[in-house]
């Protein structure tokens, strides 16, 4: 799995950080999303999919590995 974020869409509500804090981080001042890793460990992947699903700004894109 590989993830990308579009900082320009992020509204800094922090839902992603609350969902998976080993992958998502927020800028100290603006709260805008940043990634701690773009290739999450297997145990974090379900939470990452959930974060992408609930992100109100559709700022998180998940690219699954080809089966």
């Amino acid at each position, binding site marked *: 799995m590989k993830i990308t974020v579009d900082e*320009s869409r992020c509204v800094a509500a*922090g839902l992603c950080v609350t969902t998976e804090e080993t992958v998502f981080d927020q800028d100290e001042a*603006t*709260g805008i999303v940043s990634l701690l890793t773009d290739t999450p460990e297997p145990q974090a992947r379900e939470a990452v999919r959930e974060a992408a699903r609930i992100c*109100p700004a559709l700022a998180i894109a998940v690219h699954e590995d080809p089966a």
Partner: protein
Amino acid sequence: MSHDAVVIVGGSLAGLHTAEALRGENWTGPIVVVDADDEPRFDRPPMSKEYLAGTVPDQKLLLRDRARLDGLGATWLLGQAVTAVEPARRVVRLADGRELAYADLVIATGVSPILPRALAVPSAHLLRRKADADRLRQHLRPDRSLIVIGAGFIGLEVAATFRAAGARVDVVEALATPLLRQVGPQVGGALRRIHERAGVVFHLGRQATSVTEQGDGVAVTLDDGARLTADALLVAVGSVPGTAFLEGSGLEVADGVVADGHLQVAPYVHAAGDVVRWPHPLAGRSVRIEHWMTAIEQAKYVAKRIAGTGGDEPFAALPYFWSDQYDRKLQVHGFPSADAHLELLDGDLDADRFAAVYLVDGRATAVVAVNHPRQVLAGRRRVLAELALQEAP
């Protein structure tokens, strides 16, 4: 007439998210979205910020790209107002006289800005639609000047965008502090000082009594006799919910369309977004919230109710909004009020960053932060916990 479609009135933020969430809940029936606007699917927050400043291209303002919109499989009737609703027959009427039958109806008509008669000169600017932002941006130059009437969020964000571009800005506000109703006197005062340091001139406790056009500009007279002149005038004194088309429908309107705790207005009629007033379990009263995030949360909730996949508990999402002014990001969760006691969590009101909670009867009802996203999330948890206590009998 077959009543198999979900008809959504208003195809902007709340309407679009309702349609998307319905598909997300595997609702496969027809969806018809009607909007009076030719292209309602532009995002509004950037219109007073980055888009107005010119740093965001047009296509980025569109909430979804074409492919994604097409993939929804909804019918979009754009440039068509809904003029009436008949809940007994489960139909809506369009401006061209056509009727649409619905299985479920979603009212997502948002709000529109007020233009008081005394300020209604042809060149006055309002800000809600992309065309408004495009027109206002023509004045965004260092050699131009702007008068903003109304120191709410939209007025102050535009003031910041214009000052940052070097334009001269005057802000007229009837109350003693900017944003008094929204964030109270102390935080409002802190924002006032940020704007004053940036060179904005405030006229607080003053009403604009008349406006005249003068050459290419405007002249505004205040209630103390002062006269301001500028190249452009923005009126940002608030907005009215889009409920005119509900007249005669029998559906209750009282500063918004009145819904129950499940955002339900009547059998088969739901509402979402800026237009809806509902009893918020955590606020202990009925509220109408004009926040981007809340519109989306309501849309998802209503979609679940229609699809039969959730929404059994009343809608109780804690309101969240942000505002960008200069290099400051203000974030607020909860129900701030002007009479609450402010308890600082970190920094002080004039620091580059601070966070504070609003206390009413000793309990946190809201958290506010400037450039302090971590504290705001911690504060949010506290507000949720303390409001839940309050709710218990």
